[in-house]
């Protein structure tokens, strides 16, 4: 039994941990994730015949999570070709003329960044290039002075970048920078210099994600391999690591757009940032990964059914509260799970109004029930009569409170009337047979447990956990199993056995 409970707890917790850590489902409600929508825009002037456009797509292996990809163009159809760094979109149109615009829209979140730190094998050490003179001497001199001041490949590369960007007073750097005009050229220059130290390096094409960014182009950054993974370096500042607002699009050759049957007028990027519910993002992400857990989860249900389950999954929590209150504390209630149903009604009515309405309905119901007792009705007709009276009381409360402008009390209609009727009936029977004290004690016991169940069920955190991680209910199940074999005293038994505690002589 303990083994069963233990394994239930383990299964529940590990499933939840998997969903939280690997699939990224949030453990708390109301967390939002940053979602970037990046548009890649290509303008073409088509010649009138068939057109084929070959467009590079971001490397699917790199550290962000694609939520959604869309290809938007009127006359064109697109297919994705290749994988990893070679991923490309091939757009084709049978006939196109004049200005055409192709949009590739990517929605992404920056995933857990440790993906960027993923191990990748050493791509092979470059041969020392033949720089020719006097550049060769300049490279050797520069490398020597950088090597003297650095500990490992990362700091070596950083220092080199810094030196390369502060040419003042260093003729070697001036010489090496000479004739290079664009950013890509400088990065390729750095790669050439690093090859002199046999350090593998490559160009990384990045995109600055800034809010409302328009017409941007890919910027070349530097990546060096430190024998475990690729390190991204800003070629101007030497800072390592990819900033959170920068997207790695690809590596190696400059991504270009090729077109057949048309000429590319211009292409560029735009990005906007939006906040989205982490939950939606994570489920989307997990669905993309093809996680069976998520495709079989409650999120696959229609929204309306989902909202039903949002409430239903709280019932076990309420039930656990009832178990605790009855078996550990020893409170008495009418009906085992009546308090849970009342607590669910409280969710709609709010607590204070709910308690008031409950007391009013039960009190009025009891009054009528005491009168019915004198009529000596048979059981089932009497129950029916109590039910009718309860419904009437609820209707009257609604009408009057509406008249008085107290619309909150209209929610009395949400009380489970059969439960209320049964409460009235059982309370009156206990009242008759065991006295008012017992009846009131049980009545208030039920109400108190209902309030506690409500407070537990109304915790946004618990509600969130129950819905997103329903496997945690296995833990609740295990707790119920364990409590099922609990043989300790109930809290109220201290009171029940008080004479024993106070007056019996101590044993021994």
């Amino acid at each position, binding site marked *: 039994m303990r083994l069963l409970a233990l394994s239930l707890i383990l299964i529940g917790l590990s499933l939840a941990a998997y969903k939280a850590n690997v699939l990224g489902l949030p453990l708390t409600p109301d967390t939002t994730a940053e979602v970037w929508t990046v548009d890649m825009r290509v303008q073409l002037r088509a010649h009138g015949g068939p057109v084929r456009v070959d467009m590079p797509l971001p490397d699917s292996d790199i550290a962000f999570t694609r939520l959604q990809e869309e290809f938007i163009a009127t006359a064109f159809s697109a297919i994705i070709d290749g994988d990893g760094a070679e991923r490309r979109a091939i757009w084709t149109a049978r006939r196109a003329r004049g200005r055409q615009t192709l949009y590739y829209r990517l929605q992404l979140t920056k995933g857990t960044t440790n993906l960027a730190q993923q191990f990748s094998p050493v791509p092979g050490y470059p041969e020392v290039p033949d720089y020719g003179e006097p550049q060769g001497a300049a490279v050797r001199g520069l490398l020597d002075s950088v090597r003297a001041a650095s500990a490992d490949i990362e700091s070596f590369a950083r220092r080199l970048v810094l030196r390369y960007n502060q040419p003042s007073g260093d003729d070697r750097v001036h010489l090496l920078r000479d004739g290079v005009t664009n950013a890509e050229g400088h990065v390729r220059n750095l790669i050439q210099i690093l090859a002199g130290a046999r350090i593998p390096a490559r160009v990384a094409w990045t995109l600055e994600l800034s809010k409302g960014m328009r017409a941007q182009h890919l910027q070349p950054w530097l990546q060096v391999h430190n024998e475990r993974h690729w390190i991204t370096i800003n070629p101007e500042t030497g800072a390592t690591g990819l900033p959170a607002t920068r997207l790695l699009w690809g590596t190696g050759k400059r991504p270009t757009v090729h077109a057949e049957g048309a000429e590319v007028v211009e292409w560029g990027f735009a990005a906007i940032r939006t906040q989205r519910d982490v939950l939606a993002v994570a489920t989307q992400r997990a669905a993309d990964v093809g996680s069976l857990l998520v495709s079989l989860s409650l999120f696959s249900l229609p929204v309306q059914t989902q909202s039903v389950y949002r409430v239903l999954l709280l019932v076990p929590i309420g039930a656990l509260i009832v178990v605790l209150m009855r078996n550990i504390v020893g409170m008495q209630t009418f009906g085992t799970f009546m308090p849970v149903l009342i607590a669910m009604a409280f969710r709609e009515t709010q607590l204070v109004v709910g308690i008031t309405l409950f007391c009013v309905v039960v009190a009025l119901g009891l009054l009528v029930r005491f009168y019915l007792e004198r009529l000596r009705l048979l*059981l089932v007709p009497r129950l029916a009569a109590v039910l009718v009276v309860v419904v009437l009381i609820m209707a009257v409360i609604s009408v009057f409170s509406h008249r008085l402008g107290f619309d909150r009390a209209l929610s009395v209609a949400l009380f489970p009337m059969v439960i209320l009727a049964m409460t009235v009936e059982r309370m009156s029977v206990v009242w008759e*047979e065991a006295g008012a004290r017992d009846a009131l004690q049980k009545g208030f016991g039920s109400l108190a447990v209902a309030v506690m169940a409500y407070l537990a069920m109304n915790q946004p955190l618990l509600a969130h956990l129950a819905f997103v991680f329903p496997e945690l209910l296995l833990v609740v199940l295990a707790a119920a199993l364990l409590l099922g074999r609990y*043989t*300790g*005293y109930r809290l109220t038994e*201290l009171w029940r*056995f008080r004479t*024993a*505690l106070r007056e019996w002589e101590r044993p021994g």
Partner: protein
Amino acid sequence: MNPFRRLRELGLIGMNRRNASYILEHNPRRRYPLVDDKLRTKRLAEAAGIAVPKLLGVITSIRQLDALDTMLDGREDFVIKPTKGSGGNGIVVVTSRLGERWRRASGLPLSRDELSYHVSNILSGMHSLGGLPDRVMVEQRVRFDARFDAVSYRGVPDIRTVVYRGVPVMAMMRLPTHASDGKANLHLGGIGVGIDIADGHTTAAIWRNRPVRLHPDTLSSVIGLQVPDWDRLLELAAQCQALCGLGYLGVDLVLDQDCGPLVLELNARPGLSVQLANRAGLGPRLDAVDALRRIPHEACARAAIGREIASACA
């Protein structure tokens, strides 16, 4: 000192322990109907030769209400019971005729109409476990041994014996009071009087959860009384285990002035107040029974073991 630990040291059995370790362990559910239906219990007991109050008749439907008259014709006193009642609910004790009406044990009059209404209430399940339709048992009113008149107020005292695996381990007498309306149930206001299993004399008493020495209505002492026929009574209680096959059993007996000890009913979930009435926990006695290597088949031998255990644990 930790009060929970104190309770454990006193050997008191709590509700959870009773349910988990004794009732769930030793009372197979399929046996419950035997004791939950008093009519079945009575017939089983009669077949086994165990003394029970005489059954005057059974009413199973409203149409049979007329049969009530023939059943009660010429009788001065009787008891009406639901066959599946619990905790004394629905039991009406009639002690004498008042012309066209009856007089209840509480002294209140009972008209023929009120009686019919009560019977129909029982039939519709109002006093029964789970509210299921029920039958009505009419049986002989037990006249309790006159020696206890001084400590019972308008009702029949009974003797509740806890029988664990056939061994009677603890007993108490339940005395009706004015407050309990002739019923002997403790939670209705009856007095619980602890009985020494070894010799059958009363040792301590509890009323409304407080220790008492005197009956609140008659002001006679309830302590130090000797229950007559104690050995036979204990043996009768021990016999009931074989009857119903329940390992943790409450046997309610009465002492009729003419017939001696009679088994009134059996209870699969006997309460825990017997411990307070006896100023002793059930724990050590139940453990002593569990420690027995062999539990004998003969009821008289088990009764003897019960006496030994009770003296050892005293």
